């Protein structure tokens, strides 16, 4: 009887966890679709999509190479509305290049790159609006 109860509980736990993971993925899919609307047809995707589940003050960070002579668009979104995600761009030495906190938390921004460099993008939730959520970062470039 005990074994049956334990088995039942384990299955229930696993099912609920799997459901929650799928639910979170679905939520991220929706946010990615919304975020993608910031990219007009003149921007080509870099072929990747970056997602993170953030809670409270957690920071998502990713590194990428920007080629000289290119124009990039970064889209950074969380939730169904804009203004939920703060994102900052630094160079390899952590010199700040951009922060959307100075621009009404714009969900996208363009970067005209003169010379190739490595940048670090950090993103965290605007805690005035949200405590937790899926953060999506998209990168496009102008051919």
């Amino acid at each position, binding site marked *: 009887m005990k074994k049956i109860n334990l088995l039942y509980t384990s299955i229930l736990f696993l099912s609920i966890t799997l459901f929650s993971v799928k639910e979170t993925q679905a939520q991220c899919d929706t946010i990615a679709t919304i975020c993608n609307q910031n990219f007009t047809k003149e921007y080509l995707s870099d072929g990747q999509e970056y997602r993170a589940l953030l809670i409270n003050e957690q920071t998502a960070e*990713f590194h990428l*190479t920007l080629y000289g002579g290119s124009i990039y668009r970064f889209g950074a979104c969380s939730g169904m509305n804009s203004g939920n995600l703060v994102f900052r761009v630094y160079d390899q030495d952590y010199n700040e290049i951009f922060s959307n906190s*100075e621009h009404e938390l714009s969900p996208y921004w363009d970067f005209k790159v003169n010379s190739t460099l490595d940048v670090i993008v950090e993103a965290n939730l605007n805690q005035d609006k*949200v405590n937790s959520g899926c953060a999506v970062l998209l*990168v496009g470039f102008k051919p």
Partner: protein
Amino acid sequence: MLNKVNVRIGLTALSLIFAIACAESNKNEQKEKLPNEEPKKVEKKNSNLFEVEGKVFSIPSPIQTAFLLKEAGTDYRSSLLNPTEKAGNYATTNQRALNLGIYGADLGYATIYDQSQDAISYMAVSRKMSSELGIDGLFNEVLLSRFEANIGNQDSLLVLVSDAFKKADQYLKNNEQKTISVLILAGGWIETLHFATNLAKSSGSEAIRNRIGEQKITIKNLINLLLPFQDDSPMTSNLINQLNELKDIYGGIEFSYTFNPPTTIAEEKTTVINSVSKVDMTDQELSDITDKIEEIRNNITN
């Protein structure tokens, strides 16, 4: 006693569900404008950092370098592409993933040079490879038809190709197949460097030469992406070893970087990054990189 244990497990499960499902929970407080901050240099933070999907490194799109090759005035060379007939030789998941990346870069290259027939062939072989990897729902008949219908419209074709690879990347990550996703990126990067090194000498283009040298940054990111999967298969660990040898060659190349304050044009939502970088690469280093990338590529495609 058992009931108490069940309740405890139940509460743990509920807590977990709450932590995940409360994503997007909104506070009712009015949004306040964040204070403006002066551009600054910050100390690198190590604490409280959440890495994106456990991997924090990104690889540039192969399409960007293919554009550079065309802008540099190089002619289309179909001999540089991996023949589609070889697709049937790739039997393992890792081989298929790496070669899907290679075929994807070939597809982008052919598309940028308006080589319709080759582009259709490489779209078809990408579909075959992705089907064998279990991601056929993305590279499906509809996509192939849309691709064929847009032949002649390069912009639309490139959007279709980029979006297909982005969706595949997300599908694989969602389904815990991150190794495949990373190997596709690796294949694309290797094929692009193969194009560039083969065209650098014949074209004499400084832009292509610089792009090859700039991969000194990207190869570190690529190895960092692959490292978590080094024990997955001998092929993956061998690939990492070979890339490390290539990285050693890159070690001799000078890549200098100088920070200059950026210029932001708020009304255009644009920031101009004024920092300057410079690559200094000898002919011998270029030759060594060319040889090494050929060796790596041959191990994947043959």
